[in-house]
């Protein structure tokens, strides 16, 4: 009987743990990547665009904003592109110290990212490399002939809406 009680108790504890985890998931509703960040006090992607417009090359500011994933690296998930406001422009998000990656099937998912925002000029070679990662065709890659000023972001933590 003692053994039976112990087993039932163990199962009950397991269930409670699971319930607790489910509650956490329901409360936050996010899957977390990298450093743990909160789902509060973030800017919209429209506000972020204004912040970027005020940045000069070499400036870096800490930001936290929400957006939805437009494109993710199809090889490893080691970068993602987020729309900047209502424009066609995107923010290139990489992850601190190459320390975590996003799921390969996360296109279109809503995210909150926290980290450092800056602008930088990206070389033609680098642009071609990222186009290749994104699964672009040879013809599309060949069209890349000029460096581009990129809205860059180094995220230390990401929350992705379930």
């Amino acid at each position, binding site marked *: 009987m003692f053994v039976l009680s112990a087993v039932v108790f163990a199962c009950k504890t397991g*269930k409670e743990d699971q319930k607790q985890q489910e509650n956490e998931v329901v409360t936050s509703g996010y899957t977390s990547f990298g450093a743990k960040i909160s789902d509060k006090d973030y800017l919209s992607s429209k506000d972020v665009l204004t912040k970027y417009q005020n940045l000069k090359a070499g400036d870096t500011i800490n930001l936290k904003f929400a957006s939805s994933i437009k494109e993710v690296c199809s090889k*490893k998930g080691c970068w993602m592109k987020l729309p900047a406001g209502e424009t066609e422009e995107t923010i290139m998000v990489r992850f601190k*110290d190459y320390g975590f990656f996003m*799921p*390969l*099937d996360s296109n279109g998912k809503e995210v909150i990212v926290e980290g450092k925002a800056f602008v930088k000029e990206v070389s033609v070679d*680098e642009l071609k490399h990222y186009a290749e990662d994104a699964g672009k065709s040879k013809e599309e890659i060949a069209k890349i002939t000029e460096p581009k000023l990129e809205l860059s972001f180094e995220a230390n933590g990401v929350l992705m809406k379930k």
Partner: protein
Amino acid sequence: MKRFFLIGVLLVSFSSCKVEKKEKNSEDLIIRKQSEMAALMNKMYEENEILKEKVLKGETPINFPEEYLKIHTATLTDPSDRTLEFSQFSNLYINNLKDVFETNKDSLKYKFNQTINSCIACHKTTCLGPIPRIKKLLIR
């Protein structure tokens, strides 16, 4: 009869616990599993951080890690990245690293940086992502 009943209840209890565990682990996101090469690269990075500390103290390292030779055979995330250029850079990296283990104290820093620069040069041709992290290994 009582004994059979108890065993039956125990079996049901155990199996239901097992099912819960499985559900808890279920994951519907596609996350790229770390390749053999990525795991080796991460290991080399961590050990090169320790090596850097030694070099900064002027300590000549001993015993070149033979495990690093797996760079010539480990499976890459994208196997098509194992090109002739990649093989040449792998040889360069291994030779530069061997030099760190064989050089005199005066050249340690130079040889170590040469090794790290060979990593960066290779990554520029294959996988750009880790370059900012690798640059942190350089002794300024």
